[in-house]
């Protein structure tokens, strides 16, 4: 009977809630941005290597499979940036109240998707469609 009340490891009884999702998303998007960093360097190196190499790189990054990757990285960029600012406020001790944290989390997730999609279309327009 007493056994029932024994504390369990947090790992065994933590309920899945929005905080877990937002937190793990911050990590996943961070890792994706790490991959995106290598693409940024690839692009900069191509710019430095001259017009021909740059055209090749832009064509490669414009291929459908890379477009999916780049869209994922753009969404990650928006989420990680916005949620990162949210975490900086947490570090300063601001916004820890349950309702506030929940509202800011929701706002960050929604804003990230909107910002990502808007930026994607703006960038697509400046790319001139295909490339």
């Amino acid at each position, binding site marked *: 009977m007493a056994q029932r009340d024994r504390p369990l490891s947090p790992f065994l009884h933590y309920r899945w809630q929005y905080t877990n999702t937002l937190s793990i998303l911050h990590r996943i998007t961070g890792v994706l*941005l790490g991959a995106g960093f290598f693409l940024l360097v690839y692009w900069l190196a191509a710019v430095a290597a001259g017009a021909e190499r740059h055209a090749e790189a832009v064509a490669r990054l414009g291929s459908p499979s890379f477009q999916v990757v780049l869209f994922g990285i753009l969404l990650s960029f928006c989420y990680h940036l916005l949620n990162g600012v949210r975490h900086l406020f947490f570090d300063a001790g601001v916004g820890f109240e349950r309702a506030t944290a929940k509202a800011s989390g929701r706002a960050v997730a929604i804003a990230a998707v909107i910002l990502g999609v808007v930026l994607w279309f703006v960038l697509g327009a400046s790319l001139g469609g295909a490339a």
Partner: protein
Amino acid sequence: MSLRSPLGRVLGLGSAKSGSSHWYGQRVSAVALTLLGAWFAVSLATLGSFEHARVVGWLSSPLQSVLAALLVITAAWHAALGLQVVVEDYVAAKGTRVVVLLAIRFALIVAAVTGVLAVLRIAFGVAA
């Protein structure tokens, strides 16, 4: 009464022997990246086209090349700190962990040097 030595208390490095430098560096680079990231996103969005001449024209101005180099350095630094935490949390085997941490750090340093060199070449007009 504390059992810590006065020297240990003054140095403030704790059991990890690195104090709060990792935590602090992650935040410093984060603040810098909010600004550099916003600059980069706005720059790309207003670039108009990804023609080579246009990109070079943008990146070869002194201010823009300084910001681009800072973005590369700061992003590599932030990624090194962040990926280190992820690896330390999820890779349990010590041998694998050390190898992965070293591989990530080396790859990021190579990429950062490559990126900065590329920005310098663009800035000094080596590219044709």
